[in-house]
């Protein structure tokens, strides 16, 4: 009878007593592997840009002609540039434009990339070959050069047109990855089943292909946000992107030639730091998304 009791204890109602309790991990332990610092910093910058109107302590459109090229001090936290603008106030407004171009450009290139890749992956072999050769040709000319060509055609650039130009020129690598993913998924039985049931191409794309490769391309998509921001700032710096009046992190740096003459480091360093920190946070998050793959041990 006693024995039965013991057995009863093991499998019975109080079975939990014999199972080693799984420790619920503390919050910091669960978040340790996640890029929590990057998320936090990125959120801070984004919020700062959204609430730019509340953060600024000077008129962002004003030119403080008595305070040209002042080093950071208690009145102008980040100093002023050679036009007399308060860098602390305009940097948040500039962030709005830079981040907006990053997101807009990325969404455009993602749309084109996914569509092109899916088309190439699902179409007949000769169309696939043709499309891939075209993409190869497109990518053989440096991205910046095509952007230059397009921008010189567009004429006076706006935020939207720059985002479109960047998006239209940077989709090739994404399209390639999507294509190779689609080629893998395409041969699986459930696509065949869907096809034989008469599903149309957009239906298959939306219901079957997209959910299956979305995790693979997520890293690329996140990385291309930072690429777009980088490209915009490069263009604006070169004087081909946004004009100086439209404040972005890149167009703030287009004044740097004057800053070099007067040796005013803050005009160069501060907007640059904002760009780098943002890019780095975005990249870190992207890396986290990619590193979900399993690890193998070294034979060395």
């Amino acid at each position, binding site marked *: 009878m006693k024995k039965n009791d013991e057995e009863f204890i093991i499998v019975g109602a109080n079975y939990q007593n014999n199972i080693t309790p799984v420790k619920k991990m503390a919050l910091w332990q669960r978040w340790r592997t996640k890029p929590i610092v990057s998320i936090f910093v990125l959120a801070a910058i984004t919020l700062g840009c959204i609430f730019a109107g509340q953060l600024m302590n000077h008129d962002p459109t004003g030119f403080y002609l008595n305070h040209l090229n002042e080093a950071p001090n208690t009145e102008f936290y980040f100093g002023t540039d050679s036009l007399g603008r308060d860098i602390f106030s305009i940097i948040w407004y500039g962030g709005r434009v830079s981040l907006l171009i990053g997101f807009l450009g990325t969404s455009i290139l993602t749309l084109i990339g996914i569509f092109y890749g899916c088309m190439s992956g699902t179409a007949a072999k000769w169309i696939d070959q043709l499309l891939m050769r075209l993409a190869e040709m497109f990518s053989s000319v440096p991205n910046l*050069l095509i952007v230059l060509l397009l921008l010189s055609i567009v004429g006076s650039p706006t935020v939207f047109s720059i985002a479109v130009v960047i998006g239209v020129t940077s989709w090739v690598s994404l399209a390639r990855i999507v294509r190779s993913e689609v080629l893998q998924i395409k041969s699986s039985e459930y696509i065949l089943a869907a096809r034989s049931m008469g599903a149309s191409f957009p239906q298959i794309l939306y219901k079957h292909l997209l959910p299956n490769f979305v995790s693979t391309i997520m890293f690329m998509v996140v990385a291309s946000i930072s690429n777009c921001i980088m490209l915009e*700032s490069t263009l604006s710096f070169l004087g081909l992107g946004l004009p100086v009046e439209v404040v972005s992190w890149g167009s703030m740096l287009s004044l740097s030639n004057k800053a070099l003459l007067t040796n005013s480091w803050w005009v*160069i360093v501060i907007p*640059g730091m904002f760009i780098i920190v943002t890019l780095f946070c975005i990249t870190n998050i992207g890396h986290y998304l990619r590193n979900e793959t399993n690890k193998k041990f070294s*034979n060395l």
Partner: protein
Amino acid sequence: MFTYVSKKIGVFILFMFLLSVFIFTLSRLAPGDPLQSFYGERVEHMSMVEQQNARERLGLDEPLPVQYEKWLYNAVHGDFGISFKYRKPAIDILSALIGNTLLLGITAYGLVFLLAILLAVLCALHEDTWLDRIICKLGTIVYYLPPFWLGLLLILLFSVNLHWLPSGGAYDIGQSGNMLNRLQHMLLPLIVMVTSHLWYYAYMIRNKLLDEIRKDYVLLAKMKGLTRQQIVWRHCLRNVAPSIISIMAISVTHVLGGTYVVEAVFSYPGIGALSIESAKYHDYNLLMLVVLVTGALVVISSLVAQTINECIDPRMQEGVDYEKKR
């Protein structure tokens, strides 16, 4: 052998043809008058009759395919039109500057891959130790510094404050033959070029190597008593070589594209700074030529890489399906 070479040349010609059609259409599709690309601001001061005459003289009133045919005929004979900004044939301006760009680009390219392979091997040998982690973190940070910004910082530090190095140009006046002088001018641009590309390729090669050292032959080599260094340098690196070479072929575009920004920052007289200038002034003829030349460089390098790869690893030859033969 003959068919092999002629096939490669055929690919090259086809590619250049498509690229030129693409660029030609793009530049003629520009909103506004294509006359503007020939006369710039002056178009606004012309009367209607003058504009019409100019259009007829340049053949702009003909349909696009006819225009393209003419352009192609001239291009084959070495006439790429006149750069309206410099008022000289576009090809003359380009040929004067391309040497500088090639010098900068090739030096940077060589340095990037030399250092990338060294770094990748170092990381692979010390995988997941503090050394690997520090190199990875540092590399990522340096890679994400915008190249133009890094250039500005270097100018600020070494030229403006320390007066060690010149801030721009390819050489001082009258010193074009002096190698030391050229090197001084090239040092800062080179640093920027190398840092902005190095980690991207080093990381790629590192990951390839890490995949390689997980293969079975490494165990065999280890049992033979080879040291870790010997295994990586002699066996793994050689097996990774084809993919390194194809990475190198693709990277020509990136490194060339990188010179453009760097040249603009350091006002280094090369085709990069030229293309940015011509984009600013809507100098289409010059810009088209730069795009074509760049495209040609890239295609040639990728064909060369393909050929080398096919020599190293015959499985990569097109038309020969080794899987089926077995």
